[in-house]
């Protein structure tokens, strides 16, 4: 019942909208993130926009399957405590060329995403994740590594 109540309250959280350019970046690319947040922005105590890379492994545990995740990259794009700065803005981040591109097989995954997090007092926090496909670097960019 508590969980249902929590998720019901979260329905009234501020709602972020993102534009990522380029939409399908390559390793080594500079990515621009534009955001707009609608709803009760003033309720946010703080706000963080990050690019995150995660490993995901699905394994057998008894009769069940479980998935474990581990972040290997967490790159700040923006953070603020001021409502007018949270409402809309943009930031840039360079995806490190020496990391791993997006990869999906049946039980294992390398996943990239843009995360927006914000703390709200006496209310479920804002935590939204937007999947991003990161392609391998172009061949010319990797020759000098």
């Amino acid at each position, binding site marked *: 019942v508590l969980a249902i109540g929590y998720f019901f309250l979260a329905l009234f959280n501020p709602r972020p909208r993102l534009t990522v350019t380029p939409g399908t970046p390559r390793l080594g690319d*500079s990515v621009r993130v534009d955001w707009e947040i609608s709803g009760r922005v003033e309720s946010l105590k703080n706000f963080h926009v990050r690019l995150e890379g995660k490993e995901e492994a699905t*394994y057998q545990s008894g009769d069940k399957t479980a998935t474990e995740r581990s972040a290997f990259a967490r790159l700040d794009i923006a953070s603020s405590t001021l409502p007018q700065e949270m409402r809309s803005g943009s930031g840039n981040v360079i995806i490190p060329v020496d990391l791993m591109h997006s990869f999906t097989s049946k039980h294992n995954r*390398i996943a990239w995403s843009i995360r927006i997090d914000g703390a709200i007092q006496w209310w479920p926090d804002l935590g939204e994740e937007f999947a991003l496909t990161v392609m391998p670097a172009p061949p010319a960019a990797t020759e000098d590594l």
Partner: protein
Amino acid sequence: MNGLTIQLAGDRLAFNPGEGLAGSVNWSSEQAPRSLELRLFWFTRGKGIEDVGVVENLIFEQPLPQETRSFLLKLPQAPYSCLGTLVSVVWALELIAYPSKAVTRQEIEVGPGRKAARLRAVATDRPSALSVRFGK
């Protein structure tokens, strides 16, 4: 089957994505095998259930009991080799003799600069090339 070997040209074990993969395979047995297969593939290693992707295979027909044959394969642009906390992607060549199914495997690294991507778990924010503009 007494011996199966995979020898890469120049004894190289690390390659750029898209690069050619040249070498030779050698086998030796008292009776000629029916055929041999060389597979270029990746597989996952780590906490998760293993996944495999075969990219190319070469069949060596009408083999003699002892023989050396050369091969030339082309690596794709992806996936890169990677070494992670939970997930690693490993590239390999495997030579299989039939019908005995004797097998030998040679692992290789495939990635920019001929290196696997190394993924370390992050607990805290890491600095990045960053520029920020607020407001429209």
